[in-house]
């Protein structure tokens, strides 16, 4: 019995380790993903005025604070039982498009592209976006430019790029200035071109990694995402749709307020991150059983839960995930451009 420890896990927001136990035949007996930090947001916000939670929960992450701000503000809207002005909803959606562009650009160019371009087995000190500047300057420039555009969309709308105070319960606290709108419109064509050629590049490079695609993070899982009434991708508001590993719809439209009826959130003994799972399919008992375990409606207690692999019901294989990132960046661009063109008439 041997134990392999990967410590630290890099290229994530946060801190984690991975433990892999091998049996006497050198087969994987058990894996575990340990998040080694406590944040405490759910506890220390208890008792605080609810309208503070958007700016508090923004601090969960410096890359995607917009997502937390929006989710929190929407919860505050619901608590106050208000429907925000339609313009505010469009502005919030535009802001989220800006964030999708910048955070996906970061994820793709800073976190994935170094491995795709420099190779998964390159010297560990090399694969960073800085490592790309020598051998692949065009990709480094594209990544920085695309992220910069997304950040400037955020700045144009919300004044601050990180943790903006613009999103508030009930809407947003300032209108879109004509100058900001014109600046964003001017930057859209180049941003679209970068996203399009990145997608083309990724489609081309995918064929170089048949082994990785076949084996890395490639387990059958369910998927969940936000959709509009006709099942199209939504970035700001809508219903949650769950589909299975072959794309069959399992839950067509869950209202966000019903979240806890669909998703269980058990705590783990060896990690400070909870392990959300799709209640109907039960808590995953092992990697081969994760997508097909018999339905179990009661969440497991610490005493009855067995050790599981690190795969969970709602995850994604790494290659389709990268492609999804590129595609939703393009989608973020196209929704942005629809919004901006519409506003020329406002």
């Amino acid at each position, binding site marked *: 019995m041997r134990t392999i420890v990967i410590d630290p896990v890099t290229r994530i927001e946060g801190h984690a*380790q991975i*433990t892999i136990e091998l049996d006497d035949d050198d087969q994987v007996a058990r894996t575990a993903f*340990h*998040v*080694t930090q*406590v944040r405490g947001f759910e506890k220390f916000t208890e008792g605080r005025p609810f309208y503070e939670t958007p700016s508090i929960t923004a*601090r969960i992450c*410096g890359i995607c604070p917009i997502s937390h701000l929006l989710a929190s503000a929407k919860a505050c809207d619901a608590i106050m039982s208000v429907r925000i002005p339609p313009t505010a909803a469009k502005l919030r959606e535009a802001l989220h498009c800006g964030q999708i562009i910048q955070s996906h650009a970061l994820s793709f160019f800073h976190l994935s592209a170094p491995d795709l371009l420099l190779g998964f087995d390159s010297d560990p000190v090399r694969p960073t976006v800085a490592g790309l500047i020598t051998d692949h300057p065009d990709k480094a420039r594209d990544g920085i430019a695309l992220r910069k555009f997304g950040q400037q969309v955020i700045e144009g709308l919300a004044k601050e790029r*990180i*943790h903006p105070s613009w999103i508030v319960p009930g809407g947003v606290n300032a209108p879109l200035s004509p100058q900001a709108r014109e600046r964003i419109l001017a930057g859209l064509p180049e941003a679209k071109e970068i996203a399009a050629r990145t997608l083309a590049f990724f489609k081309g490079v995918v064929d170089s990694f048949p082994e990785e695609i076949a084996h890395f993070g490639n387990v059958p899982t369910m998927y969940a995402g936000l959709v509009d009434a006709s099942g199209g991708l939504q970035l700001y508001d809508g219903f949650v749709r769950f589909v299975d590993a072959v794309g069959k719809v399992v839950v067509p439209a869950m209202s966000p307020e019903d979240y806890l009826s669909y998703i269980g959130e058990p705590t783990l003994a*060896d*990690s*400070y991150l909870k392990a959300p799972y799709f209640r109907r399919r039960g808590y995953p008992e092992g990697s081969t059983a994760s997508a097909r375990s018999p339905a179990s409606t009661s969440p497991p207690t610490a005493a009855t839960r067995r050790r599981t692999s690190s795969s969970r019901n709602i995850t994604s294989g790494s290659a389709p995930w990268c492609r999804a990132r590129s595609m939703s960046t393009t989608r973020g661009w196209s929704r942005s451009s629809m919004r901006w063109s519409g506003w020329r008439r406002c």
Partner: protein
Amino acid sequence: MAPSLLRKAAPLHDIVKVDVHVPGCPPSAKLILFAVRDLLEGRIPDLKSGARFG
């Protein structure tokens, strides 16, 4: 394994010797650049003119 929690949460500067506090959540890009430039030139930056706590 996940490390055990300590009994109390302490501010960073109680545990680690801090040479410069760069305030802001986040600090502005201008302030970060100003501080890093001074440090690269061997100086402890004086941030009183460019920033304020609280």
